[in-house]
């Protein structure tokens, strides 16, 4: 007598490492972050918008951007913020992972929107409009991860 089929699942745990190229434009962002703790974007010759991440062609005007770099301010205002409550799977290491730092959309002082983490973990103290400033990894050898060379944005009093 034939048995009922067994439904079997096969786990595959091997990591799949990747090794991406930054390319010329994003490479500039990585280099400025590592060498000078600066946040840079490139400026469209036509609309003057500063793009971060930088781009060879302006997405709006569809013209060659050239090589006109602008340093972005490292201070800004929190435009909106969210924080993780339910732990997610860390997509890069496959582990349950709860980032304690709130994720914020920050309006940098030049008018560019920028997404990064906030140092302030106390949910009572989070509010839209709070003033923040980038905090960089101090150790040169730990930098080299592009915008992740900024640890988070710290609340500042002005």
């Amino acid at each position, binding site marked *: 007598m034939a048995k009922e089929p067994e*439904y079997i*699942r096969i786990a*595959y745990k091997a990591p799949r490492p*990747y090794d*991406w190229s*930054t390319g010329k434009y*994003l490479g500039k962002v990585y280099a400025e972050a590592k060498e000078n703790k600066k946040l840079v974007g490139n400026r469209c010759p036509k609309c003057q918008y500063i*793009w*971060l*991440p930088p*781009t060879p062609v302006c*997405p*709006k005007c569809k013209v060659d951007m050239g090589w006109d770099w602008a340093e972005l301010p490292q201070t800004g205002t929190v*435009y*909106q913020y*969210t*924080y*993780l*409550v*339910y732990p*997610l*799977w860390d*997509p*890069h290491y*496959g582990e349950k992972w709860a*980032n304690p730092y709130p*994720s914020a*959309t920050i309006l940098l002082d030049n008018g*560019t*929107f*920028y*997404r*990064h*983490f906030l140092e302030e973990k106390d*949910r009572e103290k989070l509010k839209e409009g709070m003033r923040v400033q980038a905090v960089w990894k101090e150790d040169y050898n730990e930098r080299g*991860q*592009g*915008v*992740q060379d900024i640890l988070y944005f710290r609340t500042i009093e002005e």
Partner: protein
Amino acid sequence: MANRVAIVGIGQTHHTSQRNDVNQPEMVGEAVRAALADANLSIKDIESMFFGNMETFEGIFLPDHGMAAEVGAIGKPGFKVNTGGTTGGSVVVEAFSMVASGLFDVAMAIGFEKQDCGDTTAAITAAAVPNWAKGAATGAIGEFAKQALAYMKTSGAKEEHAAMVRLKADKGACRNENAHLRLGLKSIDEVMQSPYLVWPLRLMDFCPQSCGACVLILASEKKARKIHKKPVWLVDYEVVHQEPFRAGVFGDPTGEETYTQHVACEKIYKRNNITDVRKQVDLAEIYEPSNWEEMNLYEHLHFCGDGEGWKLIEKGITEIEGEFPVNCSGGVIATNPIGATPVIRVAEAALQVRGDAGEHQATRDVKTAIATALGGPNWTAMFLLKRSV
């Protein structure tokens, strides 16, 4: 002038979080067989087959190759497309284009995702500029949490309104035997008391990860009338992939910019002389990963004026028995097998036009319907369906 194209076969699997009983080809085969049965066709009648799937979600390279035998594709022309969340929309566009161009008379569009195989959030996070947003993103959940914040701010909608959308969706899902989450919710409090995933987005504000497949058979006018007694005409479509990725910000946080939905729907409405959507279209099946996004889409698709999306749900206009029903099937918030999801939108809209949606058939007569697909970073595919041409 393109040839007329009609939907003559509709098939889908039931949708659920775990399908241990089938592998990916077997799951897709279920929907292919269902569509063939609906059209009363044999696989030999299908001239070309188009597949839509996000292969990085399941980790299966060339899934269409792997299932060629099971779905009867061997020896037939066709290919697989992957355009992120809009994949299922793109695969319908492919099949449509092949028939509209006259290259084929009968084409099959197949969308599928078996999300129990892998980690969707991992794949979505890797979709960002690769070494840019690593670790910063929380996949789609974080993005739609920010969208919810932006919508609250620009429209004045309250959490109660989002909860009403979820309640409406669940009512539809409970009447739809294929839907994934059929919760039997009784009050908005149940939604508003569910735990937060990413503040302010709650567990019940967001779609599940589903396994499932959906298949459409499209045919030229001369074949369509012979194949099915109730062909549903796919009269127009638009695809807009336009939004740039900037500084890790998905869309425009101020909510003031032109979105892909604006561009897509305005082109379709103009070409089809639609000036008052809710008067000239009878129903919509839209791609709403969250209840907040549904209200936002009401506005972006011009079902109402800016800042008024929440009023449609408050007045019950988009309910199954309402004046302009939206997502009678339960929508994406109840069922999201990603590559299949937009195919399901078109399929459910077509079932409504045919009057074959069963328990979740809209109260009003549906002669004209809209279906949409949405994908990151905020891309849109959109379709217009009609009972007669």
